[in-house]
C-alpha cells in the first residue's frame, strides 16, 4: 500500500507527473483550483499506486510526497 500526497498550493498544472506514472492514475482535477489559479494534479484511485515515486521525481515544483 503506497500513498502519494500533493502539496496542492505549489502545483502548476504542468502535467509532467501524468506522463511518467506507470499506472496512469494521476489526472488534472476538473474542479479544484489552487490559490495561483491552476487546476491541481490529483490521484483518484490511490489503491492502484505502487509507490514508485516517478511522479515525485519528475515534478519540478516538489509538490508530491510519496510514502510506501
Amino acid at each position, binding site marked *: 500500500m503506497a500513498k502519494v500526497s500533493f502539496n496542492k498550493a505549489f502545483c502548476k498544472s504542468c502535467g509532467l507527473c501524468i506522463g511518467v506514472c506507470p499506472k496512469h492514475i494521476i489526472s488534472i482535477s476538473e474542479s479544484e483550483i489552487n490559490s495561483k489559479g491552476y487546476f491541481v494534479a490529483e490521484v483518484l484511485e490511490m489503491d492502484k499506486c505502487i509507490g514508485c515515486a516517478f511522479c515525485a521525481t519528475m515534478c519540478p515544483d516538489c509538490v508530491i510526497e*510519496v510514502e510506501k
Partner: protein
Amino acid sequence: MAIVFEKPKMLTDKPTHYCPGCTHGLAHILTAKAIDKLNAKKVIGVAPVGCAVFAYEYFNCDMQEAAHGRAPAVATGIKRVIPDAIVFAYQGDGDLASIGMAEIVHAAARGENITVIFVNNAIYGMTGGQMAPTTMIGQKATTCQSGRDVALNGYPIHVSEMLSQLQGPCYIERVACYDVKHIKQAQKAIDKAFQNQVEGRGFSMIEILATCPTNWGMSPQDSLKYVEDVMCKVYPLGVYKDTTKEEA
C-alpha cells in the same frame, strides 16, 4: 509507511516563480539533494542573472547574487576566502555562455575548486525568448523568427566540449532531465561534482539540458520530447572530462 520521496532540506518552502513545466525546478531539486547528502557545515551558493535570479530565495543556504555572468568569479572569491565551505554557482545559458563566457573559461582554466551547475535551455528565458549562444541551428526564437541561420548568426557554442579541452577542469558532464532514468543519471553526476569539491579535486561543471515550454511555444510534455529528440542530438550527453578516473 516510510517516506520514499520528500522535499530536500536544502530547499526553502517558497513556491518557485518558474513557468509550469520548467525544468529549472528539477535542477534545483537535484542540486539540493546532492548538497543534502554531503552534510556540510557551510554551503554558499552563487545565483545568476536570468530565470534563476531568485535562486537565493529557494536554496536554504547562504546565497550571493552575482552580476550578470560573473557567478564563477564570485564563487572563486568566496571559495578562496572560506576554503571549508561548499561553494556552487548556478547559471543559465544566457548567463554562462554569453556575457559570462570569460569568467567560466578562466575559472575552469584555473581549476578553481568550485561546482558549477549550468542549465542549458538554448534560449534567453527571462527576457522573452531571444536567441542565445546555445540556440540550435534552425531553432526559432524571437530574434531569429525563421530559425537560427548560420550565415547570419553563426554556430551555437558547445560549452562542455569547449571547456573539456582545457587542462584545469576536473569533471565535466552533460546530462538531461527529460525522463526518470535521465534524472537519476543527472543526480549521480551532480553528486559526483560536489564530491569532487569535498575531496579538493578542482573545477566541476554539470551541464543540464533543460526545457523552456513558454518560449519554445510547446506544452511541457512536448518540450521534454524536444529535448530527447532534438537537443540531445545537437548536444550529446555524456562525460566530457573526468580526471578522477585518470588518477585511479
